[in-house]
C-alpha cells in the first residue's frame, strides 16, 4: 500500500518535470514581455506535429529530429515576435491577449485540417519502454530523463538570465523598456531574442510531451492551463519555482488519476486553486 503511494508520488514528481518544461517558455514570455501567450499550448502541439513529420520524412529518431527543429523553433519565435507580437505589445494587456487567442484557434484548426483529429504520440525507440528497477520500485527511463532535462533546463535558463550578457539585456528590458530604448538598448531586438528562446523551450516541451502522452490538434489549451498553473504556483518570474510548481501539479494529477481520467485533471485544477488562494504570490516568489 505504502509502496503504491510512494510509487505514485515518484511518478508525480517525474511528471512535474515535464510540466515544468511546459511552463518555462510561458514564464519567460510573461516575465519579459508581460503578456500571457494564449497560444503557448498550441505552439507546443504544433511543434509536436512538426517533429512527427520531420522524424518520419527523414527516417530519424525523434530526439535527432528535435536537434534539427531547435533552430527552426528559435527562428519561429523570433519571427513571431518581430512580425506580429511586437506590433501589439506595450500598449495594453488586451491586444496581445486577443492576438494570441486568435493564433491559438488558427493553429488548432490548421492542424485539424492538415492532420485530422486522430490522437498521436512520438516514439524514441527503446527509450519509450525501458525502465529502472530501484528497491522494489519501477521507474521509466524516459520520465527520469525528462525530469533531469527539466532540472538542467531550469538551471541553464537561470544561468542565461542571470549570468550572461543577453540575460542582463532581457532583464533590463523587463525592468524598464522605455529606459532601455532611451539609452539605445533596442527592446525590439531583445524581445525577439527572448521569444526565440521561448521557441526553443517550446520545442523541447513538444518533444517530451509527445513521448510521454497522447496529443491531438486540440490538446493545446490543456497544455496552456498546465503551464499557466505551474507558473502561478511556482511564483511569477521564478524559474526554480516552475520546477516546484510542476512537481506539485504532477503529484496532484497522478493521485487524482487513481480515481479516473477526469479526476486527474480536476485534482490538478483544485490543488492549484487552493494553493493559489492560500499563497497568491506562489511557492517560491522571486521577490
Amino acid at each position, binding site marked *: 500500500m505504502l509502496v503504491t503511494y510512494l510509487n505514485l508520488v515518484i511518478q508525480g514528481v517525474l511528471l512535474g518535470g515535464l510540466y515544468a518544461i511546459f511552463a518555462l517558455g510561458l514564464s519567460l514570455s510573461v516575465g519579459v514581455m508581460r503578456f500571457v501567450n*494564449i497560444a503557448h499550448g498550441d505552439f507546443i502541439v504544433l511543434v509536436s506535429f512538426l517533429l512527427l513529420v520531420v522524424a518520419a520524412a527523414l527516417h530519424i529518431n525523434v530526439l535527432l529530429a528535435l536537434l534539427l527543429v531547435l533552430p527552426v523553433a528559435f527562428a519561429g519565435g523570433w519571427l513571431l515576435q518581430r512580425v506580429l507580437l511586437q506590433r501589439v505589445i506595450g500598449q495594453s494587456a488586451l491586444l496581445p491577449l486577443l492576438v494570441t487567442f486568435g*493564433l491559438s484557434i488558427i493553429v488548432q484548426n490548421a492542424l485539424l485540417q492538415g492532420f485530422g483529429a486522430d490522437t498521436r504520440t512520438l516514439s524514441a525507440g527503446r527509450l519509450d519502454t525501458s525502465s529502472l528497477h530501484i528497491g522494489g520500485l519501477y521507474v521509466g527511463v524516459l520520465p527520469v530523463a525528462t525530469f533531469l532535462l527539466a532540472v538542467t533546463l531550469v538551471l541553464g535558463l537561470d544561468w542565461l538570465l542571470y549570468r550572461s550578457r543577453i540575460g542582463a539585456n532581457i532583464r533590463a528590458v523587463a525592468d524598464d523598456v522605455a529606459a532601455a530604448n532611451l539609452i539605445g538598448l533596442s527592446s525590439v531586438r531583445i524581445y525577439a531574442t527572448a521569444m526565440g528562446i521561448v521557441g526553443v523551450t517550446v520545442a523541447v516541451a513538444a518533444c517530451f510531451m509527445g513521448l510521454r502522452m497522447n496529443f491531438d490538434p486540440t490538446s493545446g489549451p490543456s497544455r496552456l492551463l498546465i503551464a499557466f498553473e505551474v507558473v502561478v504556483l511556482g511564483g511569477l518570474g521564478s524559474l526554480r519555482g516552475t520546477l516546484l510548481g510542476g512537481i506539485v501539479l504532477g503529484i496532484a494529477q497522478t493521485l487524482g488519476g487513481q480515481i479516473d481520467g477526469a479526476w486527474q485533471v480536476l485534482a490538478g485544477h483544485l490543488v492549484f*486553486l487552493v494553493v493559489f488562494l492560500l499563497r497568491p504570490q506562489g511557492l517560491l516568489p522571486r521577490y
Partner: protein
Amino acid sequence: MPRRQHLSIASGRFVLAGAALALAAAPSFLDPGGLTVLTEFLCLLVLALMWNLLAGYADIVTVGQHAFVGVGAYAFYGAVVLLDLDPYLAFAAAALTAFVIALPAMVIVFRLRAAYLAVGTWVVAEVLMLIAGKLPNFGFGSGVSLPVRVAREFGTRPDARFATIYWLAFALAAVAFASTYLLLRSRIGLGLTAMRDNEEAAGAMGVNLVRARIVCFLWTAPFLGLAGAIITLQKLRISPPASFSIIDWTVFVIFNVVIGGIGSLEGPILGTVLFFVLREYLAQLGTWHLIILGTLSIVIILIEPRGLWGLLRRMLGGDLIPVSHGARPGFGADRTP
C-alpha cells in the same frame, strides 16, 4: 459637427431602430427555422454584450465566459426537472445560480493581474465543466435530455413553442442591452471608460475602480446564465461539452466582439450580425471557418483595435449609441510629451 455627419448618424440610428422593430415583429413573419436562427442570434448577442462589457470596459478579459452559460443551463435543468419548479421560476434559478457561482469565482479571478486573469477564468471554467460531468443527476459526462413535458410548457405545438422561446430570447437581449447601456452611462460606467482611456483621470473622478469592475463581473453572470437556460430550452439537452462549449460561447463571441469593435455598444451588434452572415457561407468549410475568423480578428486588431465599428465610426463621425460624453482616444495611448 458638420451637417452631413448629423445626417449619416441619424440614418444609422434609423437602421438600428428599424432592425429592433423587425426583431420585435419577427414571429409574425418568420417560419420556425428562421426563428431558431434568430433566437440563436439574440443569445449570442447577449453573450457578446457581456463579454464586451468586461473586456472592453472593465479590463477583465475573460476566456471563461462559457462557464456561466453552462452553469445557467445546468441550473435550469436542475430547477425544472429535478426540483420540478415552474419553468419561468427555473429561469430565475438559472440567473441566481450563475450569480452565486460568480461570487467565489470573482475571489479567485480578481487576485490575478491583467494578463493572468484571462487564463485564470479559463481554469475556473474548466473546473466547473469537470464538476458538471461528475453530477449523477445530470447524466455525468454524457449529459441528459430535457423531458418533453418541459418543452410543452412553452407551447404544445412546435411553432408556438419556437415563438415563445424567441420572445424569451428577445426579452433577454432587450433587457441586457438597455441595462448595460444604462450601466455604462452611470457613474460606474463613466469611471470605467475614463480608466480605459486614462487611469489618472478616472482616479481624479473619484470612482472606485475595483468596485466598478466587481459590479461588472457580477452583472454579467445572471445574463450569461439566462442565455444558457434559453439555449438549453432550444437544444433540449444539457451536457458538459455542449453546455460549457468554449468554442460556441466564448471563442465565437470573442471573435464577434473583436471583429465588430470592442469597447463600444455598436461593435458587438455589428460583429454578431456579421458572424451570422459569414456563417451562411463559411460554416460548411469546417475548420476553415475558424481559421478565417481567427485571421480576420488578428488583421482587424492590427488595422484598428476598435474593430469594424472603429473604422465605420470614423466615417460617420460619431456614435450611434453614445455611451461616453467626450471624445475617446485609442487604447492605451498614454504617450505624454
